[in-house]
Every structure is written in structure tokens, then in C-alpha cells.
């Protein structure tokens, strides 16, 4: 309510910007699907509805996503309980390691699986040798392969959400339940599970939406099995642009329907009345044999979950053309890494990805900050609309957004807000930016909501103007949120494959595309070396973003 004019202006500019970048391209896609050279037409919609392949792809997307939720939950929930509830030696370290699949960008995870479980991967070759088989024991292809990769890369959502949910429980509640005569199972069902429901629903929603938008795994492992994201790309490569638009619309509708449905059933987190006590203590395991068995199991699980990382590291030292049928590569070299640093053709994608991701991150943080401040301080409709617009790209698969941006910014018509960006340096940072807005602004908004509004008023009553308050009070206090939002944005953009494959040019080719082309020219060592670089950069940036404020807690 103070400084009304400036706040209104910021909100207005932000609204126009978001409508232009987020909503407008999607509307254009919708229009293109029902508009041909000779005016309005439903021809493409009819064509879409008549083709069984389209229905199969849509159905494939749906059931793969549902199955991914079930599998990710089946892996992630037990892991969360094991590592955060039981008192195992090294439980904290192991608990951290288990979250590491999060540092593998989707495409890198996929190629790691290829090296590990593919027909010429370590595990297959090892089995062939041991069992004296003449053919690989399996083919890493089709729905099964996609689900395997999804379960591996998405259990982390369930793992992290449930772990946070368990940590947020009040230990005294468990003691209260025990003192009221509730046994372990009754406590679990009546006290723990109901309070974990928001975490479980949140993880399920995130997994579903991520696998609906998943592109890398179906693209590499799909073979004849199509989901809608890969179907769109192949239709577009066939030159059937209008049909691709209709497919894009169908996938968007599926995503939005799922979001609405899950949102409706998701319970709001209930706030307890009193103060929250300490998190429940870990359950000690007293019998030595049991303790040994569980510790061994925990280590085994961690090793299995980290095999893809280790594989990638190992393969990155393999010289080109030396590893064919041996279970373990016969020769090693650091030449692959030297090539990444020396060979200008190999350096270029790294430089590209760095600046593309940096530009997108800076813009996403700036817009996210402005949006968060508007949404956190204005309870009115405008604040809610801006919050909704910032979150919208999250519900829309990356493939869809890439197509939408490619459609909107391939025409020169400045008077209707369309300029040519496709084929220029700017289309990729723009695409990364739009895709990153939801996660970045969500992190910053959470930080802004947690700030005591009285801090602003205190600064005002001490004579500090708007800029001084922003610079000296708001920004320093939002630092952890800004770092978290920025690191998420950077990691996503740095490893992006799904939007890049539709929008890159030779000059702006990012690392992920270079990995793909190295793989196609059978240069697995270089592909893996790129993967290791992506993994390490992502991991470091995540660590930076997770920096905890070591300063005194908030007053009062």
C-alpha cells in the first residue's frame, strides 16, 4: 500500500511480458492447428483423430507416466524411510548420496544407462561372458527401458519429498501417540501417513508431469514405441507442421487435465496449532546381526544407484574405437578431456551451454524476483494472475514450449508482437528462460512469503526508501532463495536437451546435442566426458544453491 505507483507499474510490465512470452506462443500454436492456407479448417484435427498411431502415442504418454509414478514411489519411499528413520552408521552420508541421480541431466542419465545396461553395456557383456551367451540377454528398448530410466531418475522426487515430510514431523506427536496406546502400525496409519499426504501427492504430481514431458528416454530407447513428445518431433521432421500443432495441443490438454485433477485431490498442508517440536529421533537397531544386514543393504543400494555415475566416469577415459566386446574397456586415456579443452570444435558446445544457461538464469532470477515480490505483497487478483502465469510453463511439456516459441518467433510481424528469433542466438536462452520461470519463481516466492512483512515496515519507519530497503533488507534476506532458484534454473538450462533439439543452430549447439552426435559417431569416450562435465557442473551448482544461511535465525 505504500509506494503504490511504482509497484503497480512493475506489476503491469511483468503482466505484459508474461502474457507475451508464456501465453501468446501457446495461443498461436492452437490457432495454427485449426488454420490452414485457405482459412479456418478442422482438417488436421480430423486427421489426428482418425490415425490410430496418434491415439497410441497419447495413450503411451499417459500410461508410461502413471507407471512411472508407481515405480518411482516404490523406490523412493522405502529409501526415504530407510535413510531418515533408522539409525544406521553413516546414514547421513548415504542419505545424501542417494539423492545424487538429481545431478544427472536427463540425456546424461540415458546415455549412462546405455553404457551400463545397453546391448553393449557393462552388465550385458558381463552376463554374456559369464553365461556364455551368444546374444545380449536383453535389448534396452521400448516401454520397459523407458520405465527403467524414469524410475531411476524420478524416485528422487519421492525420496526428497518424503524425507522432508518425515523431518517436518513433530517427534512429540509420535510419543503422544505411544502414550495414548497406539502401536507402531496404528501410529503410522493414523499419525504419520496423513501428515505425509501432501508430500506424497506433491511428489506424484511432479513425477507424472516430468514423465509426461520426458523426451530423452523415449527418444533414445523408444524404438518403435512412441509417446506424444517423440511423436511430435517426428511429425515435424516429416514436414506435417499443422498436424504437429494438433499433437502439441493434445499433449498440452492432457498435461493441464492431469494437473487440474491432481490439484483437486491434493489436500492442502494443514498447519498445526502449536509450536513444532524436534523431528522424531531415528529408530535404533539393537540386534547386531540386523544392524549389519541393514547397513550392508544400504550400501548395496547406494552402489547400485551410483553405478550410472561411475560408468560414465569410467567410459569417459575410453579411447575412441577401442572398446567393443570386452566386458571392461581394455585401454584408458585422458585424451577425451584434453580434446574438450583444446579442440575448438569440442570447446564450442561447452562455451555455448555456459553462456546460454547463464543468460537464461540471470533473466529468470530477475523476472522471478519481480514476480515474487509482486505476488507476495499483493493479495489482489493481479498478484494471483502473475503467480499463475509464472507457474504455467511447468504444466506444459518442454517439447510443446519449444514448438510454440518456434512458431511465434519465426515470423516478422512486430505490430502483433512477433519477431524473428528462430535461427538466431536468442531463441535458446529465451526457451530456457520460459521453461525455468516456474521453478525459479517458486523458490523465490517461497522465500519472499517467509519474510516478515514487518521487516519492510521497520525499514520504512527508520526512513529507508524503496531502493535502500530492497538492497539492504529484502535482497540479503532473499539470498538463499535467489541462490536456490538460480541454481535450479542454471542446472536445467545447462543440461537441456528437449527444447534444444528443436531450436538449436550449429553456432549455438549446446553440450547435449554434441553428446548425441558423439554417440552417433561411436565416440563414446567423448560423449561420456561431456556427460561427466555436465554432471560435475550440475552437482557443484546444486551444492552452491543449497547453501544454508549460517546467520542468526529470524527474530521473534
Amino acid at each position: 500500500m505504500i509506494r503504490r505507483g511504482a509497484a503497480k507499474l512493475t506489476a503491469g510490465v511483468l503482466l505484459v511480458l508474461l502474457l507475451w512470452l508464456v501465453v501468446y506462443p501457446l495461443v498461436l500454436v492452437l490457432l495454427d492447428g485449426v488454420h490452414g492456407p485457405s482459412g479456418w479448417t478442422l482438417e488436421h484435427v480430423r486427421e489426428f483423430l482418425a490415425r490410430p498411431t496418434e491415439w497410441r502415442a497419447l495413450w503411451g504418454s499417459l500410461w508410461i507416466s502413471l507407471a512411472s509414478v508407481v515405480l518411482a514411489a516404490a523406490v523412493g519411499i522405502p529409501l526415504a524411510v530407510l535413510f531418515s528413520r533408522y539409525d544406521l552408521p553413516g546414514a547421513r552420508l548415504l542419505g545424501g548420496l542417494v539423492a545424487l541421480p538429481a545431478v544427472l541431466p536427463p540425456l546424461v542419465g540415458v546415455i549412462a544407462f546405455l553404457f551400463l545396461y545397453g546391448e553393449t553395456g557393462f552388465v550385458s557383456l558381463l552376463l554374456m561372458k559369464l553365461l556364455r551367451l551368444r546374444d545380449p540377454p536383453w535389448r534396452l528398448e521400448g516401454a520397459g527401458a523407458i520405465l527403467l530410466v524414469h524410475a531411476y531418475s524420478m524416485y528422487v522426487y519421492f525420496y526428497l519429498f518424503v524425507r522432508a515430510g518425515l523431518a517436518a514431523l513433530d517427534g512429540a506427536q509420535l510419543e503422544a501417540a505411544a502414550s495414548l496406546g497406539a502401536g507402531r502400525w496404528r501410529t503410522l496409519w493414523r499419525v504419520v501417513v496423513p501428515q505425509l499426504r501432501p508430500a506424497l501427492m506433491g511428489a506424484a504430481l511432479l513425477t507424472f508431469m516430468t514423465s509426461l514431458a520426458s523426451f530423452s528416454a523415449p527418444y533414445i530407447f523408444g524404438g518403435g514405441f512412441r509417446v506424444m513428445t517423440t511423436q511430435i518431433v517426428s511429425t515435424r521432421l516429416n514436414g506435417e507442421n499443422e498436424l504437429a500443432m494438433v499433437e502439441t495441443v493434445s499433449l498440452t490438454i492432457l498435461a493441464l487435465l492431469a494437473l487440474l485433477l491432481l490439484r483437486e485431490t491434493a489436500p492442502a498442508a494443514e498447519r498445526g496449532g502449536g509450536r513444532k517440536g524436534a523431528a522424531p529421533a531415528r529408530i535404533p537397531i539393537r540386534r547386531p546381526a540386523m544392524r549389519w544386514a541393514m547397513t550392508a543393504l544400504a550400501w548395496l543400494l547406494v552402489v547400485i544407484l551410483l553405478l550410472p555415475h561411475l560408468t560414465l566416469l569410467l567410459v569417459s577415459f575410453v579411447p575412441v574405437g577401442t572398446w567393443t566386446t570386452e566386458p571392461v574397456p581394455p585401454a584408458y586415456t585422458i585424451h577425451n578431456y584434453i580434446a574438450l579443452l583444446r579442440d575448438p570444435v569440442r570447446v564450442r558446445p561447452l562455451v555455448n551451454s555456459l553462456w546460454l544457461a547463464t543468460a537464461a538464469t540471470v533473466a529468470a532470477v530477475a523476472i522471478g524476483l519481480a514476480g515474487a515480490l509482486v505476488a507476495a505483497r499483493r493479495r489482489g487478483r493481479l498478484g494471483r494472475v502473475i503467480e499463475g502465469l509464472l507457474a504455467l510453463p511447468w504444466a506444459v511439456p518442454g517439447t510443446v514450449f519449444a514448438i510454440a516459441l518456434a512458431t511465434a518467433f519465426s515470423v516478422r510481424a512486430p505490430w502483433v508482437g512477433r519477431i524473428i528469433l528462430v535461427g538466431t542466438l536468442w531463441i535458446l536462452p529465451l526457451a530456457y528462460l520460459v521453461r525455468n520461470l516456474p521453478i525459479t519463481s517458486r523458490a523465490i516466492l517461497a522465500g519472499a512469503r517467509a519474510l516478515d512483512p514487518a521487516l519492510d515496515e521497520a525499514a520504512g519507519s527508520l526512513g529507508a526508501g524503496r531502493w535502500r530497503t530492497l538492497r539492504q533488507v529484502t535482497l540479503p534476506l532473499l539470498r538463499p532463495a535467489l541462490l536456490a532458484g538460480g541454481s535450479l534454473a542454471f542446472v536445467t538450462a545447462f543440461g537441456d536437451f528437449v527444447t534444444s533439439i528443436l531450436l538449436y543452430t550449429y553456432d549455438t549447439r549446446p553440450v547435449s546435442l554434441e553428446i548425441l552426435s558423439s554417440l552417433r559417431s561411436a565416440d563414446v569416450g567423448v560423449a561420456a566426458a561431456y556427460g561427466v562435465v555436465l554432471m560435475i557442473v550440475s552437482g557443484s551448482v546444486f551444492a552452491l544453491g543449497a547453501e544454508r544461511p549460517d546467520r542468526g535465525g529470524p527474530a521473534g
Partner: protein
Amino acid sequence: MSPFLQLDGLVKRFDGTLAVDRVSLALERGEMLALLGPSGSGKTTTLRLLAGFESPDAGRVLVDGEDVTGVEPVARRFGMVFQHYALFPHLDVGANVAFGLESLGVRGAELDRRVAEALALVDLTGFERRRIGQLSGGQQQRVALARALAPEPKVLLLDEPLSNLDPSLRERTRHELRELIRRLGITTVLVTHEQEEAFDLGDRVAVLRQGRLEQVGTPDELYAEPANLFVGGFVGRSSVVPAMVLGPADAGNEVRVAIEGVEWHLEGVGAAAAGPAELLLRPEALRFGPEGPGALPVTVLASRFVGPGALFATATETGVTIEVMAPVRSVEPGARAAIMPSRRAGGGIHLYPAGA
């Protein structure tokens, strides 16, 4: 002399409900006023209107004759201590206290000197480099006070300044706060829902209910002459009993009042039109006595020792509870007894028209 701080007909609505309804108050320079009321009475909103965090729908705020209603909080130079202190957690104690001085352009050695002075006022000398998170609740409260006082504000605003302290700390801090503010002579408005706090800190107390000002006065005026049942009930202990005014008595200024058929002759109790009324009874204005004319029969429910005597909870035949202050063990719980105005009445009993 015209008042230093003036609230003139302030009105504030939130979504159509009146939070502050035509509140007018005036403070002399150096006066300390307590805004007292239950939650939702509009006392905090009134304070926020004063600070400029809310703008009134009608009315004005004047400081030294100058209208500051449209002046932004940044320029108003009112110091404020927030209920949860709102200390900046990323800045140390010194930087918190320096914050307002820097707004005034104070720099260098002068800044350090004035920060040290402000911290000395609240007995925190040498605390400049401490982190906020390392301080106890009482120390945080004092830093908040030092921060508000350092820029030498024209008016000091305190929003429930003691509510976040342990009860054991509260009384001592209250005395220190009162002494400091008296010594500085700064015009102060304080919001509280605790009568004891308001009486101890306020030169005058303004009682608010549902956004309206019910009464303003010194603590003893409020206690001795409550303007209505609400003020009487909110300030000090009392019981309310339905009664019937029968008319003036033969002698002097006395009024004849009937309570459940028992007739009392009361003096100096206010409005005396014949008809239904309500009596506000302070426990010390009543005593137990022998049954007979003018004695109201009651049952003793319980007693509670309070130092100079005991407070007895009693119930009349129709179930109205009345508290009586009397020597310890005057009557036993469960016994039948009779109550009447004590001889030294003349205060402590007030008559209000029914339904007011």
C-alpha cells in the same frame, strides 16, 4: 497550549468492516498514552494509521500542528517497536541500530557514537557486533527499542512491546521501559491488551472496543469512574448484576435499587432514572453481613487467597455470580451467606441503564 500529537476523527475500513471508527485523541508533548482493548478492538490498526503503514479513509494525524496524514512512513520520523521486533536478522546489533541514523545521513565516527549512545540507553553497551540470533528475547526487545530511539524520532510507537517476553522478565522490563521513556521525555503511544501494562506505562489510557473509543483517562479515573459497563468490566475486577431502579430515596442523594427483591440504598452511582438497570460491583465495595433487610442472600462457591484478603465467588438465588473481597475465612465455601454494600461504599458501585 495545543496538543503535540493529535488524532482527528480517524476512520479505517477493511473490506467494508469498520476497524477504526472516528477515533480522536490528543497527546501533550512527552505524554505516554496506552491504547487498551481486547483483540479486534482496532488498537493495532490505530497505531498503524499513526505510523503511516495504513492510510485512513477519513480523519487526520497532526504532529505539532502539522498535518502528516499523507506523509509516507519513510518521512514521518516516528520510531516504532514491532510486536515481534522485526530486527534485521542478517545485520548485527550495531548495524540494526545504525539503520535509521544512516537514513538521516549520519556517517563515520558520529554514527558509531550515536549507536553506542542508543545501546547504552538500553543497557547493551558493547553489543554492537553481536548477531541477532545470539540474543535472548529480552535483549532483542531492547535492541528493537534502541533502533527505534537512535534517530531521535518525534513520536515513539510501541506495538505490544512486552508480549513476547517471559512473564518473569515482563515486569522488570516494563519498569525499565517506563523509566527510560520518562527520562527521554518522548511522546509515546503504546498498544496493549493487558490492563496492568496499560496502567503502569500510560499517563493516560484509551480504552477501545470494536474500533470505537470508549473512554480516555488516567488509570485511576478509569477505575473509579468507568464510563460504561464495558470499561468497568475491562478495567479491574467486577461483577455485573441486573437490577431495578425504584427511584430516589428519602434521604440525601441516595437511589433505591432492587436486586432480586432486596432493596439497597446507594449513593453517587450515576444515572438514576427508574426502570431496569445493571449494577457494576467491585469486589472491595461489598461485604458479608447478617441476614436481614438489605442483605442479598447468596451461596458461597469458592474462595481464593489474594494477599490482603480473599476473593469469594458467590451466586445469588437466580444464579448470578458476584465476587466479594473479605478477610480470609470470613465464610466457608458451600455455606449460605448474605452480602451488602460495605460501609465505605461511595465508590466501587456503578449503575448503568440496562442494555447499554
